[in-house]
């Protein structure tokens, strides 16, 4: 019987840790980055993934994260050198046209809003920055500096349909933000507390009403949003939706869980763990909104060292990308997608 999760290709070109990789919205390209201070652009050539470009002049320290804009024409990179670089995609080449400065030290994560109006970044300096983007990404103006976390902020992500931002931190919490329409100030609308250690990563489902989080406490948590006036009768203070932890998956992971990806097409959840494994979870048929049940479909020894990131492809169901401390990037096919 074939393995449920099969490796399609292994790409061993980075030197040292590969911290992150992210898909182009087309699903036909992705970017990877790491300890070697380079970004590498990968494209599909028939059945093989090949390296199309190396961007090596953007940062002076580790590149922790990369993200393509929703329009697909821009790439942002976040580095331990405290800056964020914006790269313009010009055919097969990439040109660095802006560098965003403002964070005091390591930038850990970068994310573009789906609307194309905003970019978010976060850092060990405990802040989350929201940058407003003018037409064609020519200028980035700081719209807000959110100093609400008590410790480093590890991850920022945007809601799949609205300009709603979420951040995860070393202070064990997740925070949700939005722009206050009355005065254009960014405000924190919810703080999600339940993890017992650093929250390394978070992912929305396709609707944006559910959030999955992974942590150094070796658990995965599923959070449900309850709107104002919800039928369950859950109280919503300040007329803002509340988020409740409705499911905790413990006992599956043996070490820190560094990344989580929730497939917008199949609903499958993949996790990247410090025990070198990738695990895939599927929501059970008997699952309900208020008491969801997730079952582990498969678990595979994926890399020789910690798995740092996992990302489901936005176009091909079951295609998964992973990166590791062992210097490798791997592409996987999940056969039961």
């Amino acid at each position, binding site marked *: 019987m074939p393995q449920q999760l099969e490796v399609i290709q292994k790409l061993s070109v980075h030197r040292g*840790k590969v911290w992150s990789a992210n898909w182009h919205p087309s699903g036909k390209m992705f970017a990877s980055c790491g*300890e070697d201070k380079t970004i590498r652009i990968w494209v599909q050539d028939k059945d093989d993934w090949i390296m199309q470009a190396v961007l090596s002049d953007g940062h002076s*320290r*580790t590149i*922790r994260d990369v993200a393509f804009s929703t329009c697909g024409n821009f790439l942002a990179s976040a580095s*331990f050198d405290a800056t964020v670089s914006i790269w313009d995609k010009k055919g097969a080449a990439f040109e660095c046209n802006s560098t965003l400065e403002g964070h005091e*030290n*390591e930038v*850990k994560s970068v994310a573009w809003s789906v609307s194309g109006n905003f970019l978010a970044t976060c850092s*060990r300096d405990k802040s989350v920055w929201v940058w407003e983007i003018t037409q064609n990404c020519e200028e980035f103006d700081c719209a807000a500096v959110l100093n609400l976390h008590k410790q*480093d902020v*590890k991850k920022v992500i945007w809601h799949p349909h609205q300009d709603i931002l979420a951040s995860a931190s*070393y202070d064990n919490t997740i925070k949700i933000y939005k722009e206050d329409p009355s005065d254009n100030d960014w405000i924190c609308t919810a703080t999600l507390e339940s993890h017992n*250690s*650093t929250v390394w990563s978070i992912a929305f489902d396709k609707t944006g009403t559910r959030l999955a989080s992974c942590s*150094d406490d070796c658990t995965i948590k599923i959070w449900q949003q309850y709107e104002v006036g919800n039928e369950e009768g859950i109280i919503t203070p300040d007329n803002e939706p509340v988020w409740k932890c409705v499911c905790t998956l413990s006992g599956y992971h043996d*070490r*820190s869980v560094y990344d989580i990806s929730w497939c917008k097409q199949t609903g499958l959840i993949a996790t990247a763990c*410090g*025990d070198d494994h990738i695990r895939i979870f599927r929501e059970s048929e008997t699952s309900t909104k208020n008491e969801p049940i997730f079952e582990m479909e498969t678990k595979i020894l994926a890399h*020789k*060292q*910690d798995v740092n990131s996992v990302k489901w492809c936005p176009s091909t169901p079951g295609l998964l990308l992973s990166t590791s*401390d*062992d210097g490798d990037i791997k592409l996987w096919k999940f056969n039961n997608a």
Partner: protein
Amino acid sequence: MELENINPNVFKKSDERIITEKEWDESCIDPIDAREVFDLIRSINDPEHPLTLEELHVLEENHITVDNDKNEIRVLFTPTIPHCSMATLIGLSIRVKLLRSLPSRYKISVAITPGTHTSENAINKQLADKERISASLENSTLLEVVNQCIASRSNR
């Protein structure tokens, strides 16, 4: 700089490993053990005193565990005083020395012996955060201090 612990207790060093005929036998299966890990880190220098972590009993062989089936190595260290501000630096030095010396398959954890430091949990969390460790090693000033702690006495 003023010393925090002016007069620390100094202990006798353990004896060198006895070399037997077996050490020369190539066919002998010889997994990494606690003594071997201890030998890698016992001579790390204390940041304050001209003494090694072994001589100050910050490191002891019986506080090291090696699980070769799970590829896990756990080192507990004991700060000389419960409010020692150097504890994070000492832990970082131990971790860096082991990361540089041991095969990459090992999952290494370095933590404070329970009950021996006032900020035990905060320091343990910091030493377990691989992203912070990686970033700190790109800080050239800090790296120089760590390298000085790790450098063996004879090279100084």
